[in-house]
């Protein structure tokens, strides 16, 4: 069992990372960051300096990085990666990984299975996609929690984050999600190696 510390963009990423680490029988240490991708970009080199002795799992939404392909992110942000630094880009956004467990998210959102994309990593804006699916939910509770009110500048509903976190911790099935998300699968396999 290894203690794995997390460095993530936000609250949903934290719950996702937590679940992956626990699934592999490791123990989660401290969760750092939760201040967006720019924070990670600015601090990653400093965190990396201690990654000879301390294990970190870093998750960054690929679409926030502005690069053309995931390897570019790592070569720019972390040219001298230490061995206990597990840096993974989430293609394209954490919601892709969540949508990848199609069966459970369809049930949670109370929509038909075919409404959930089969290739969530090729969605241009996965968060928007998830909100749009919720918009057509049969459940008014899901609609009112996850979808922003009309004319609001908010991107998501008032309870979006807390509801998605609840979904991840209670229902999200990593095994099923890995099949539809290569970047999740790679992250899982890499973490398994430690």
């Amino acid at each position: 069992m290894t203690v794995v510390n997390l460095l993530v963009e936000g609250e949903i990423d934290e719950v996702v990372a937590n679940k992956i680490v626990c699934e592999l029988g490791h123990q989660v240490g401290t969760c750092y960051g939760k201040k967006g991708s720019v924070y990670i970009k600015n601090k990653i080199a400093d965190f990396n300096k201690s990654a000879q002795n301390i294990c970190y799992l870093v998750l960054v939404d690929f679409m926030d990085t502005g690069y053309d392909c995931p390897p570019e992110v790592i070569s720019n942000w972390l040219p001298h990666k230490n061995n206990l630094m597990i840096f993974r880009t989430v293609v394209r956004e954490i919601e892709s990984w969540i949508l990848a467990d199609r069966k459970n998210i369809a049930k949670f959102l109370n929509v038909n299975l075919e409404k959930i994309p089969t290739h969530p990593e090729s969605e241009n804006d996965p968060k928007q996609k998830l909100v749009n699916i919720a918009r057509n939910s049969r459940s008014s509770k899901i609609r009112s929690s996850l979808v922003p009110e009309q004319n609001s500048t908010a991107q998501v509903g008032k309870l979006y984050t807390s509801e998605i976190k609840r979904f991840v911790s209670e229902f999200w099935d990593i095994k099923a999600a890995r099949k539809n998300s290569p970047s999740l699968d790679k992250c899982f396999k890499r973490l398994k190696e430690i």
Partner: protein
Amino acid sequence: MFIQRLKIENWKNFRKGEINLSRRLFLIGPNASGKSNFLDIFRFLREISLDTGGGFKQAIETRNGVSAIRCLFARQKPDISIEVEIKDDDDSIWIYHLSFGQNQNRNPIIKSERVEHNGKILLDRPDTDDKKDIARLSQTSLEQLTANNKFRSITNFFQSINYQHLIPQVVRDSKGFSPVSISNDPFGRDFLHRVERTRPNIRDSRLKKIESVLQIAVPQLKELKVSRDSSGIPHLEGIFEHWRPHAGKQFESQFSDGTLRLFGLLWSLFEGDGTLLMEEPELSLHKEVVRLLPAMIEKIFRSRKIRRQVIISTFSEEMLADKGIGGEEIIRLEPSPDGTKLVSPLDSPEEMEQLRNGLSIADVILPKSSPQGIQELLFSL
């Protein structure tokens, strides 16, 4: 003088703890972990050393008795004890130790009291006099002028401890919170009286300095002064610039929470030179102002040419992002099934490595002080 080491037993949430303190110290920890109770140790030391308006018995009474102070986790040895190591300006070391409990009538009694100076024991109670007259054990020797002549300097030092937690509503309406006047009230009931009573030249020079800082945080503010109304009640008066051609006068009742808090905070930095205890100084302030607080405190002490100890409880990310704050200046309060633990980053090779590698307290220590199980907070609603 400053307190460089603290040892406590059975004090409120702390069953047992021993830790080094630095001249500037930040306390971090989740809600109800005991930050205020930690600060209360020093308030208690101040109160027991006051010969008038304080003393051991009263300090216990205002805390609702020994059993309310005693840690719920206390085991076989239920006495409460506090020991502080004080470094004097001449580098000599004082130790003050006090342990107390209650007798069968639930009255607080001193179980032991000890004063050492550079290893030499100056006081060791109970002594023969205490054995002859057991009633003596209801008073510390700090509060008795005849008993403390050999260690007057630590009595004076304890008396100079200053706790500040100004509550704007209280400053605005002190009568509403307490009809009788309270002296040295940390929440601000006598705050304006204290400001007003300060020697005019000192007061005006402080007000000028505070005004110049406040003007940056509150750009509309043009001038700051203290005046008395026709019934003799002191008021804080600010001249604010606004759209009218002539600037408008406002009194403390119209000041914003942030303006009053910042004023109180700055005033406390200029007032006194004993250990200053600050409870969440970031409250009501814009994060850009909060970011500057550590440097502001340092600059004011430097300008006063004093080396004053300051202990700050905080949740503020902005304040702790200051790279000038070292791991040795942090105490993290960590709740556990055996009472709250006092944790220093110095004891964690991992944390020290992260800090040495350029990360700030806000980056690596603050995340550790988030409440356990916070994820479930919303699920339970």
